[in-house]
């Protein structure tokens, strides 16, 4: 906001030196060949003038810059320190609070797998090495992508993969399964794989990115089959989690909490 001293001091100094005839400034009689010399002589004088202005203005100006430099340096250091302290308090494996995501959401994805685990029970591990349970693609039957690399899209029976968001330490209760219903049953029917959209408990709990290397959450494939004699081939399907008392599927605000709604349009 302040005017820079150099822009103020320099032009005035130099302009006065060029406009003022050097003879008069020195009081010496004009002599041929002295023009350059006197101009050169004039320069230090201007510099001198400027320096006084320079020190008069630049000193506090420089000081205030230095002050802010030191001040912000100190603040930055302090901030870094407090951030560092905070990061030290964090657990590398599990976030401190997980109450913001009590319940997973559902979305649509593809996948890949690892190791066989006993079905139907939570696969709790003590570490130090955490294994991820295999999800045999065969479970997805028509939608496994092996028999039909087009996932049914070429046949007018598109597969949609629905998954739960990963949440560390989530242990579903009961028999969670994903239930999908088309808005209008006359237009299309819906198949879910594995059968009944069951989500096996063996994929829970999740121990976090760092410990649980290679973990991917279980999937449910939803296949939409349009009725053959239909002219309208557009359907809205709603999938939601069911059968587990601690997995919510209703929230006014979060339309994706425990459920997902998607619309499929097929064109011949």
């Amino acid at each position, binding site marked *: *906001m*302040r005017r820079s001293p150099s822009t103020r001091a320099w032009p005035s100094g130099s302009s006065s030196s060029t406009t003022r005839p050097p003879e008069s400034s020195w009081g010496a009689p004009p002599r041929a060949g002295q023009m350059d010399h006197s101009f050169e002589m004039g320069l230090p004088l201007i510099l001198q003038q400027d320096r006084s202005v320079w020190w008069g203005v630049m000193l*506090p100006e420089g*000081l*205030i810059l230095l*002050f*802010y430099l030191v*001040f*912000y340096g100190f*603040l930055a250091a*302090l*901030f870094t320190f*407090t*951030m560092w302290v*905070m*990061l030290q308090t*964090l657990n590398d*494996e*599990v*976030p*401190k*609070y*997980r109450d*913001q*995501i009590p319940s*997973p*959401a559902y*979305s649509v*994805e593809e996948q890949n797998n690892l190791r066989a685990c006993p079905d139907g029970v939570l696969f709790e591990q003590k570490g130090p090495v955490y294994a991820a349970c295999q999800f045999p693609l065969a479970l997805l039957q028509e939608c496994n992508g092996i028999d039909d690399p087009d996932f049914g899209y070429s046949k007018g029976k598109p597969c949609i993969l629905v*998954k739960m*968001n*990963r*949440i*560390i330490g989530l242990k579903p209760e009961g028999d969670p399964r994903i239930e999908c219903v088309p808005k209008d049953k006359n237009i299309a029917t819906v198949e879910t794989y594995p059968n009944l959209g069951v989500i096996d408990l063996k994929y829970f709990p*999740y121990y*976090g*990115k*760092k410990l*649980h290397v290679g*973990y991917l959450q279980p999937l449910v494939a939803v296949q939409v089959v349009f009725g053959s004699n239909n002219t309208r081939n557009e359907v809205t399907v709603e999938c939601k989690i069911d059968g587990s008392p601690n997995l919510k599927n209703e*929230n006014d*605000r*979060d*339309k*994706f*909490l425990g459920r*997902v709604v998607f619309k499929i349009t097929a064109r011949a």
Partner: protein
Amino acid sequence: MGFGGKKRIGRPRERTPSPRPRRRFKAKSQQKVKRKKKTRDLEELKKEVVMDDHKLSLEELSAKYSVDLKTGHSPEKAKEILLRDGPNTLTPPATTPEWVKFCKQMFGGFSLLLWTGAILCFLAYGIQLYSKQEPPKDNLYLGIVLSIVVIITGCFSYYQEAKSSKIMESFKNMVPQQALVIRGGEKMQINVQDVVVGDLVEVKGGDRIPADLRLISSQGCKVDNSSLTGESEPQSRSPEFTHENPLETRNICFFSTNCVEGTALGVAIATGDATVMGRIASLTSGLVVGKTPIATEIEHFIHLITMVAVFLGVTFFGLSLLLGYDWLEAVIFLIGIIVANVPEGLLATVTVCLTLTAKRMARKNCLVKNLEAVETLGSTSTICSDKTGTLTQNRMTVAHLWFDKNVHEADTSERQSGDTFAKDSDTWFILAQIAGLCNRADFKAHQETLPIAQRETTGDASESALLKFIEQSYSSVKEMREKNPKVAEIPFNSTNKYQLSIHLREDSSQGHVLLMKGAPERILELCSTFFLNGQEYPMDDEMKTSFQKAYLELGGMGERVLGFCFCNLPSSFSKGYQFNTDEINFPMDNLCFVGLISMIDPPRAAVPHAVSKCRSAGIKVIMVTGDHPITAKAIAKGVGIISEGSETVEDIAARLNIPASQVDIRNVTAIVVHGSELKNLNSEQLDEILRKHTEIVFARTSPQQKLIIVEGCQRLGAIVAVTGDGVNDSPALKKADIGIAMGITGSDVSKQAADMILLDDNFASIVTGVEEGRLIFDNLKKSIAYTLTSNIPEITPFLLFIILSIPLPLGTITILCIDLGTDMVPAISLAYEAAESDIMKRHPRDPKTDNLVNHRLIGMAYGQIGMIQALAGFFTYFVILAENGFKPFDLLGIRLNWDNRFLNDLEDSYGQQWTFEQRKVVEFTCQTAFFVSIVIVQWADLIICKTRRNSVFQQGMKNKVLIFGILEETLLAAFLSYTPGMDLALRMYPLKLAWWFCALPYSILIFAYDEIRKFIIRKHPGGWLEKETYY
């Protein structure tokens, strides 16, 4: 008064056969040229009054106004003139219509800044509406809130000022006045407004003069010209032409002055606006007044803020373009940043602070008409004070007595106790008898319960003063008069210059005593003996010398001196003798001289102290009075306007016995300027006088000259306060930066012209006003420093949101919660802060350099404390996100995904996946926590803003409102965070207890940093740190 000693014979009048200038016609017919004419008129009005009616003989007068001096106008002719000239009323000053006043509140100064902000918001929303499918409504809401804030604050200050003017209304005297005129040979009562030029008007004691009158005849008529001249001493009026100056001559009575006693018949020579009073009123209403200092300061502040806002906005506009945002988005950012710099709550805070001070001042008898004038008194560097009624009690009081060759001092304070001098002398007994008996004044009935000094009396000021004095310090005058009945009397007149009365003696001797009082030299002439300690001695030269000495001494003190003598009449004049006062049949020489009593309108008791306080506060007090120089100077010395050691040129000349021209004027600081000298000065010479002297008295000044003096002071850069009560003061009152009228004795016109009214007429109240004004200026600084600080933690989140693409750390709603919620009460509470040091010991601020908001304040608020606060907020923000799974470094650049409504499996640092809504809840929780952090760092900010130099430990925490403010903001923050339903209403979420403490280290840092800064400032006064950071 110094009106027109130089003759400018009837210049405007002579050209017009009609006595009224044709202005009225012109105003009606030539509306177009009105503006130009108005300025010329104003110059005309600033000149002295010119008229010649007082010099005319009755015949000339009769011819001039074509009226028969016996029968008056015929009713028809009167009607005709009335139609021509219009009613005999003063054109009321062009009052600003209410809606203009309202609009001024709505769109003036600070409001304009907020309006600009609001319009920018709507503009941004418009752009978003146009460019996006589902635009966030933040800008719309912000625009609406800004507009609501301006409207509410505008209404509030309008209401406040309307309330003050309501009080003004109540001062107005609404009773319609009547006048007694002779028309067509008949006396008739008509309304004053129907009086026309040339009417024969009869006035009697108690009447208000209905027009400017040239007297034709009078019986003992006395008028009180105080509303015109400020001097309340009644002046006698008679048909004789006694003075060139129309204001001094006896044969003119002025419109709206009062006839005190007697009767008079006169010809109306001017009515309405053409009267002397009307000219002053028009001059007053024609004056253009400048901005108040605080308005200038706020303008300066707006400039600074705008500069900062535009600088930030443009910088980040460029940055966001560089970062690859499209230009429409960048424009939204630009607007957002500029608007974010608008301190939404400050307008309300400043208004409330000023209102609080106005209320506090009203309690201390300073009624402020205009809110902004609250501070003006604090900036005042020169006070031009009227004398009579402001500095003095406006009541003649006995000040000194001289008898037994000694001067005795009487008590002149407002509550006279009396017993101050030796009363055992027989001379005192005689003197008291004369003063009580040879006295026509009397107390009005039914006042026995009142203290003597406050009782009302009949009779002139000197006699009343004597009456009260005797009643107070001797005995009941009533009893005295009953015991010594008056048998004959010669009342005072200006040729005799004495008053005489003859009384029956109290003792059984059946003799009479002759008592006399009058002009001392006249009394001494009549005396052949004098009274000393109860003995009569023949008059000798020694006595005469000591009389002269005493007379000069008392007269030199500006006092009115009366001499007293008596004579026991020989037994040939015993009871029953018929005294004839017309053909004097009793001896009236060889009297016995008793003593002198001198009187003065004494200064109010509190004034000398107040003047010295003004002095130490660096305020120059100038006396501007219509009174005589000697009296003015005496009072000036009495109240300290001319301080004890100071001498004027004349004083020095008298002391050294050299002519005044030889005095070395370089060291002279005091001066008494006579109105007639002032008239011949040009403005440079006047400036020279004002610059060179610290102690100035202007005597015998006209209303126009008062105005010139004020303008002179303002030319020198002073902020001028003017006090006055009369109509004569009103042009100066209006022109002054702050005009102060007297609430009790002040005329309506002066109250209209003033910005402030002293309800108790006491000059000392001005000192309170100065103190409050200075305090509020300091406290406003603090308040603004406090409010501006939180601007940085409010803007930086948005800036980092743009640059680092992190989730928005602080939203619009939370910003509004701070500016209009939690910051309000604490900011206002700073208005209650006590002064850090004796603010009456320092000089008035220099309006050029000592600004309300300067770059140091901005530097402190924005550059230092604000930055620490922003860090506190960001720390809390990062803590919450990290503890929920989003580590700081993973946040950088996350914005697009984060704000993508359709991305419902955003992965955090731990591999968890979040839906849009879930992360928004975390984001809003962060914003709530950021908000709470600001509240917590604002605790420290509030405490450091309490003082600018002192440590908080020196200042203490006595400000209860401030403590309440801290509690209030904390509770409000907790309420906003924890109340169920807030998540839906304001998107604020409950916080874990630990998150409240994240900002605490920073709060402590702010406190420690500032204490250290202030410590260094105190240790090195004038040092670098003070120059750079002391705001």
